[in-house]
């Protein structure tokens, strides 16, 4: 059986680089998940002392509200401040007596939209010193991060979706793109293509084995990363918030995206014959895809641009939240990859092997 020999040879030739890359990815993924608890804490306490100040709606939506706070030791009275941002607040009123820990506020405004306000309660001590008790708002706060990414990073799913949508495709995509090009072009450049193809192996088999070996590499990376994710999510005590299957499925669903990248890179390698040129094309493709996806994500009205990127066909959010897997997306990416591989085969079978 000669099937798989070229694949096996490629594995023997490139396993060191693969292991090194895998170690880097494992450290990054594991480290990222381990950072989650401190991130969550930081985001939960985004407004200083917000846990000490409460707000109760008395009338209307938030037209009349009651601010209440915990009694502050040594306070003679409390000063209430209001403003449109936490950095620009002006004194509003004073509440005398340490035991009086509430303040009713009627919001006056014109028009239909209720203005958003920040409130601060400051304790004034007998020695005149002032100390912040806490802050609160009359609206549900979102952080800048949440507004930009449109996800709730406060839960583990949202946090992981940052991982997927930021460096995931870039880091793994660029590595996979490089490997996919190299398995072909190195055979040209290191003068072994002539000998390999002088043996009784068809060009089709040669190319399909090269494609398969990189696809399996990628699948192995994803399975290992899925396992690392499960392990690290478990160790930070979050496996009750997300199922291990959601973690593995969301990771593995990126495989068809990478198959697209592999196919394109193999095609570029076959056609251009040069590592530098083909890696350049592969990297430019990945970076443009990533850029378009980012623009589509961040710019209102340009969301449609995302449909032109392969990354968009990886619905990690649905998978992370345990929703239905987008089989159409997977099917589309597989068809796209197959078309690219067939194109590479057609070109390779008809081309002159360069010296």
């Amino acid at each position, binding site marked *: 059986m*000669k099937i798989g*020999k*070229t694949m*096996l*040879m490629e594995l*023997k*030739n490139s396993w*060191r680089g693969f292991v090194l890359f895998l170690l880097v990815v494992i450290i990054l993924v594991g480290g990222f998940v381990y950072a989650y608890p401190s991130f969550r804490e930081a985001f939960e306490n985004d407004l200083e002392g917000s846990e000490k100040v409460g707000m109760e709606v008395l009338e209307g939506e938030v037209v009349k509200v009651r601010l209440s706070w915990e009694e502050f030791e040594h306070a003679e009275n409390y000063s209430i401040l209001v403003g449109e941002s936490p950095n620009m607040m002006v004194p509003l009123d004073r509440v005398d007596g340490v035991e009086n820990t509430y303040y009713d506020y009627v919001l006056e405004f014109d028009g239909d939209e209720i203005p958003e306000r920040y409130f601060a309660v400051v304790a004034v001590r007998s020695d005149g010193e002032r100390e912040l008790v806490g802050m609160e708002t009359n609206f549900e706060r979102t952080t800048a991060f949440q507004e930009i990414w449109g996800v709730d990073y406060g839960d583990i799913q949202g946090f992981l979706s940052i991982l997927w949508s930021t460096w995931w495709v870039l880091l793994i995509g660029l590595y996979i793109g490089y490997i996919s090009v190299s398995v072909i072009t190195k055979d040209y450049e*290191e*003068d*072994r293509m*002539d*000998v*390999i*193809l*002088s*043996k*009784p*192996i*068809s060009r089709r088999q040669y190319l399909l084995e090269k494609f398969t070996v990189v696809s399996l590499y990628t699948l192995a990376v994803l399975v290992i990363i899925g396992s690392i994710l499960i392990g690290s999510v478990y160790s930070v005590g979050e496996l009750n918030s997300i199922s291990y299957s959601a973690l593995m499925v969301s990771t593995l669903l990126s495989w068809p995206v990478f198959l697209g990248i592999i196919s394109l890179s193999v095609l570029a390698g076959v056609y251009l014959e040069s590592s530098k040129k083909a890696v350049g094309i592969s990297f430019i493709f990945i970076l443009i895809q990533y850029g378009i996806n980012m623009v589509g994500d961040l710019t209102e009205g340009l969301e449609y641009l995302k449909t032109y990127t392969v990354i968009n066909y990886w619905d990690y959010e649905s998978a992370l939240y345990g929703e239905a897997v987008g089989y159409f997306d997977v099917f589309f990416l597989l068809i796209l990859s197959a078309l690219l591989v067939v194109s590479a085969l057609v070109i390779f079978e*008809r*081309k*002159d*092997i360069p*010296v």
Partner: protein
Amino acid sequence: MNIRGLTKKYGDIVGIKDLDLYVYEGEILGFLGPNGAGKTTTIRTCLGLLQKTSGDVKIFGLDSHKDSIEIRKKTGYLPGDFGMYPDLKVKTILRYLLSQSGVSDDSKMKKLSERLELDINRKYGNLSKGNKQKVGLVQAFMADQDLIIMDEPTSGLDPLMQQKCYELLREEKAKGKTIFMSSHILAEVEEVCDRVAIIRNAELQVVEKIDSLKEKMGKKLVIEFENSVDPTLFSIEGVEDFEMDGRKATMIVTSNLDEVVKKISKQNIVNMSLETFSLEQLFLTYYSRGGKGE
């Protein structure tokens, strides 16, 4: 191996033009030509590494394009620029290439490696140029195939190893193997080849047995006379490139040597030599004459 009207063009550039060549079973055919003449293009087109523009190549009676897998099962090949995986051991590489040829017995591979003093436990990337060439030679012969095609087989080998390579070629031929090899080392071709094919500017100039070629090219005759002689004395059919320098006459005699001898027998001769051309002289003559030896 039967090549008929083979043409390979790279855009407007002609690599080989209308090439006809027959390699007989059991012979060693040397393929001579300067750099860029079309030797490598011919070999690589026959093996299907380059797509032919027109013409027909049959090896073992099979079509080189349609039946290339079958042909490659029975053909060993050493390219002009042989390379392999630099980080892998030689034995791993050789076993892979052997298995790709469908052979599991590696005894010939081991024997050849020992004979060529090749350490198969070393990494390919750590080998010298000569040792890398030995790997190429071993892989070309190890599967015991019927046809061996080699592009500059002794490139990078020291003289001792070159001799071992010639021995190997002769042994393989004795076993009935057919060998088609290109070379620019004329002495090597003269030493091991039965016939020679000379290619120039993408066109085949001649295919002949080396002895026949030498015969056809004639002999170099140098005569030193005691007195001046009339140059018209040598206006004989079969005398070419006649030159008279004082009392010394130099010519190439391709036929009618007896006629020449009769004519000069009446002259007083001081010195005379009759030399057979070496392959190198033949080759240079072909090229200096700019055509088919005419």
